[in-house]
């Protein structure tokens, strides 16, 4: 092996990755070549320098938080087959944004899907637990001065769980949680603004009204506006089920507020 041949193998030689069959020739060359010995030394010094760099560890609180998330995820995964098998529950989250929207609706939908996933993983997603729609409406009114329409989906097997106020992005929002089976679904509502025109998705018509459908993170979303607010539903349920819930909420609001 000459210097050029050795240099072509310099990196794997120093990294201990040179083919064993080539090692004897490389070593034999090094014995009598000071220049290549110096090359090897320089390479080793660079590696040593890099290995001397401070090595950060994951912060303990992050480690603990991650462990918690994984354990919750494990619990969810464990019950999921049963949930799917019996189709025993669904959660519907009604979300009302309290402030005029500053961000595009498409990213709002993504935020809400993320929120929904997060709340699905906590022990008690409802801040105010009640199966009574008027009680949840009253809670929102007293707690945040919000006129939230809480539809009664019980005839369709959708059980009200309660409500929650939360942050969505940099805005305050309210959620109403329902259950139907264990298939999760969320509904959100945002005061109508310029963003109403920014809603994206495939346009579908249901009982004479137009809706926009869009998939985010594996969840189906249905969105619409009634002129006063933008509404949306997020779920792993079928679009048919979402549209039916959307239609009911739309009727309830029209009845309540004449929208």
């Amino acid at each position, binding site marked *: 092996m000459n210097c050029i041949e050795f240099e072509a193998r310099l*990196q794997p030689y120093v990294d201990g990755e040179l083919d064993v069959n080539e090692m004897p020739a490389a070593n034999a060359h090094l014995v009598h070549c000071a220049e290549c010995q110096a090359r090897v030394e320089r390479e080793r010094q660079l590696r040593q320098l890099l290995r001397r760099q401070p090595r950060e560890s994951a912060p303990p609180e992050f480690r603990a*938080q991650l*462990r918690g998330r*994984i354990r919750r*995820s*494990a619990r969810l995964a464990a019950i999921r087959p049963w949930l799917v098998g019996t189709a025993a529950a669904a959660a519907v989250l009604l979300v009302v944004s309290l402030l005029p929207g500053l961000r595009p609706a498409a990213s709002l939908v993504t935020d809400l899907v993320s929120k929904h996933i997060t709340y699905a993983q906590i022990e008690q997603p409802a801040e105010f637990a009640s199966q009574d729609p008027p009680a949840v409406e009253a809670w929102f009114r007293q707690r945040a001065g919000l006129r939230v329409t809480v539809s009664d989906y019980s005839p369709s097997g959708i059980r009200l769980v309660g409500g929650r106020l939360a942050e969505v992005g940099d805005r305050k929002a309210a959620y109403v949680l329902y259950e139907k089976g264990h298939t999760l679904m969320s509904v959100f509502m945002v005061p109508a603004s310029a963003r109403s025109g920014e809603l994206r998705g495939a346009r579908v018509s249901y009982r004479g009204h137009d809706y926009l459908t869009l998939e985010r993170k594996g969840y189906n979303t249905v969105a619409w506006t009634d002129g006063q607010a933008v509404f949306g539903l997020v779920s792993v349920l079928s679009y048919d089920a979402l549209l039916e819930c959307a239609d009911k909420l739309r009727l309830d609001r029209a009845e309540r507020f004449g929208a």
Partner: protein
Amino acid sequence: MLEWARPGDRSREFEETALVHLDTLYRSALWLTHNRAEAEDLVQEACLRAFRGFHRFNPGTNCRAWLLTILRNEFLKRLKQGGHEVFDSGEAGDRQRGAESITDAGRTRGHPEEEFLQTVLHGDVDRALKALSLAHREVVILADLEGLSYKEIAQVVDCPIGTVMSRLSRGRAQLRQLLGRLAREHGYVKEAE
């Protein structure tokens, strides 16, 4: 009868097999994002993804490389979603970024590394590594900071071993040159003739 999964067993197994590599994932994420909050978010997403796909992990194979692959894919996905250009080989990027004319990547002659490598500051190594293109930085970090083998790196960055070797060679050569320049700036070594 329906057999209930045992979530405790599953998460414990994941913790014992995968989460022992959390520090490596965390450091790698820091090098990818240069931002602690983003790094934590990236690691969390990668770990949850890995946990969900843990049944696909073949016990006895390399868990560290498997996790790093997931982390990297998640990072690239975010880059794309953010509308950023995703690197490919890095060679074109180097030229665009006006990286100094690295002569033959493998060649190191004529540089007084023996002198400056002794005096380089941690901050300089950090700066020099950050100045590398992503394609070169990631292989250098995986090899020289995390100690992965060529084969493991090839798995993580999804390219042939030969490509890993050439990127490593170029990356290290660029790093050496950048460190030399920083050392000269600090006056540790005289201008090379």
